[in-house]
């Protein structure tokens, strides 16, 4: 067998370099695509957020004026508050519901696969279709929900999307309904990856089912919970379709959220600069909240 001399090692080095370059060459189309269609627009929209582009054919540099205008606009703060309202209600409600469904769907029952499929079903329908369907159901006069309320409780139901108070709860309900099944599947995967022997050991030690859940299942599930929490927060900060289809941000701005406001500003009112600034404010909020999640995880997330 030949000894690997200096010559051989330089051949190997050259081959390794060639392989590296080849590998990178394969990545080039992706990198090129990302740069062109992702990084390009990202940089462009940052720049646009400092201009008044959209008002006419003449574009001027405004510095931070778009951001300052947001800060002083009462409507922006209303929209900001609405977005938090949506998030702070829909995320806990959605988490509880999907966790509950996951615990149910984790039972060993005949036909449980069918139930899992049924719960998962809403998440494969397009949000636009879901929102349209629920706007028929929520219709105050002709909708099924108020029909049931009238027949069962003999009182007129709320005006739902036509009401300043009830419009947002209706949108939240639709969002929770649509995503519960999807998050259930993630929780279910988390539940099934847990070590069953821990459960059995706890049961043998006399822990009741609540204690087993609280002290065995839940700690094991925390990494999954963190994941679901992060994606739900990001998703709900960007809520758009329900607003677009069901309320168009009304009534009286009660359901105007950040994403929809960005859309209005950019594509209905032509304030591209202002809209870009708004988009970066939303981006900053999502970043801060997500960073906070990761900073706080040490306190409650338990990795096995």
């Amino acid at each position, binding site marked *: 067998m030949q000894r690997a001399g200096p010559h051989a090692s330089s051949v190997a080095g050259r081959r390794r370099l060639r392989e590296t370059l080849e590998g990178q060459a394969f990545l080039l189309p992706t990198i090129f695509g990302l740069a062109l269609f992702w990084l390009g627009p990202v940089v462009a929209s940052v720049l646009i957020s400092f201009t008044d582009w959209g008002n006419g054919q003449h574009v001027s540099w405004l510095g931070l004026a778009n951001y300052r205008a947001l800060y002083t606009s009462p409507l922006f703060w209303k929209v900001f508050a609405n977005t938090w309202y949506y998030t702070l209600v829909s995320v806990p409600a959605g988490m509880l519901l999907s966790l509950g469904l996951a615990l149910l769907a984790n039972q060993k029952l005949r036909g449980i696969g069918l139930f899992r499929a049924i719960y998962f079903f809403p998440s494969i329908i397009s949000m636009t279709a879901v929102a349209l369907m629920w706007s028929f159901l929520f219709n105050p006069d002709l909708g099924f929900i108020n029909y049931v309320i009238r027949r069962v409780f003999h009182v*007129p139901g709320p005006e739902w999307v036509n009401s300043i108070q009830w419009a947002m709860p209706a949108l939240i309900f639709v969002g929770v309904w649509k995503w519960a099944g999807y998050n259930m599947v993630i929780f279910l995967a988390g539940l099934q990856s847990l070590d069953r022997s821990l459960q059995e050991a706890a049961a043998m030690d006399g822990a009741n089912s609540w204690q087993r859940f609280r002290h065995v299942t839940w700690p094991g599930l925390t990494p999954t919970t963190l994941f679901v929490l992060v994606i739900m927060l990001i998703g709900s900060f960007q809520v758009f379709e329900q607003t677009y289809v069901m309320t168009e941000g009304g*009534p009286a701005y009660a359901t105007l959220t950040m994403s929809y406001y960005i859309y209005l500003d950019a594509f209905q009112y032509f304030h591209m600069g202002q809209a870009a600034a708004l988009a970066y404010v939303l981006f900053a909020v999502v970043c801060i909240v997500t960073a906070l999640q990761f900073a706080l995880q040490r306190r409650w997330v338990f990795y096995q």
Partner: protein
Amino acid sequence: MNRTQVSKGLGLVLLLLLALPHGGSAQATGAVTYWTYFTDKWDLEQKFLADFKKARPNITVQAQLIPPDQLQQKTVTAFASKTAPDLWNTAPTFYYEFVQRGDLENLTPYITRDKTGLGTFFPNILTDLAVPPGSGNYYALPRNYVVSLLYYNKNAFDKAGIGYPDASWDWNKLLDVAKRLTIRNADGTVAQFGFVSSPWHTMLDPLILANGGRVLSDDQKSCRLTDPAAVKTIQFMVDMIQRDKVSPNPTQLKEYIVESPDAFKAGKVAMFITGSWAITSMREIKSFDWDVAMVPKGSAKRVIYGGPDTIVMSSSTKNKSGAWELLKYLTMQTPVSWYAAGMGLVPSVQKTATAKEWLSSTPPAHTQVMLDSATFMVGGFTPHWLEWQTAKRNTLNEAFFGQKPVAAAAKEACAAIDKILQAK
């Protein structure tokens, strides 16, 4: 020779005339791109464009149907990427915006060169299109107009023994009848509302004008909703909901109030004001008879919401002569059958609108009301129209929902509107 033969013959003569060389446009050739949002007229439009192809074999039309709610966004994006169509149809909603942005070709030089007879159009739908007002500079020609109408459920009137609405009605009469047409169930719920009151531009804005008030100042730079006449009018509309209870809460859904008035169609509302465009949808009503009347007059005069849908030319088009030929054809030669299918869109050409084929396409029985209303028509469109109207509706809605006094809501509306109108 019957009437259709006559009109066919006339059409043929017109086509021949169009094909004859005249002015500088005779050599018009090449491709013209054209976007339209009239979804339910798409088949008719393609047939009509095929006729244009026969008359003008040198011009190739590339027509594309864009859903109405996407047309605006698509056009703006197309301008940004320099791929704008040569021609497209636009509602007045965005017309002034396009003019302000410099996206539209001034058509007046073409009109002067070709001695295009603008007298063929209803005069007052042209007036609104001149920018600046009264200047005679047209950046669009009208293809049709739409106008607000008072739709009413004839069966509801018959049951209550009330005479049908007519041009003599004012708003107090409407309120009076609305009270009599509001029917309550034993449990306090409402089986039938008399009317639907709302802060939409199709109803509130013209009534403010009709009562001697103003929505905006003359220079369109400030809001006048806090003036006494405007406040009084808004109060009247709010009272219909909160005090008289003849109207449901203002619904936010545009499908409900502006485009497809489901509540009226379901027989839950006896009288309803919306644009003539809703006729197509109203024709689906099977359970009762309905008709239209002129929107009632205010305390000072009669003002009715309405305005033209137009064809505009991009200022960056490469084929100006070809685009101009098609623009003229679309606005001046569209046959009456195009308008009569579905109704709702009133022909901009006087002769077409008074043709029997259009007038006798029922329901509604009183199609003539759409023509009579034209004299009183005001659009109220400005640059940033959609933005300040959305602000107006959302701020005033707090009063319509009974959560704020009218004066306070009007003040808030004006603060928001002024900010939009006075932005650079």
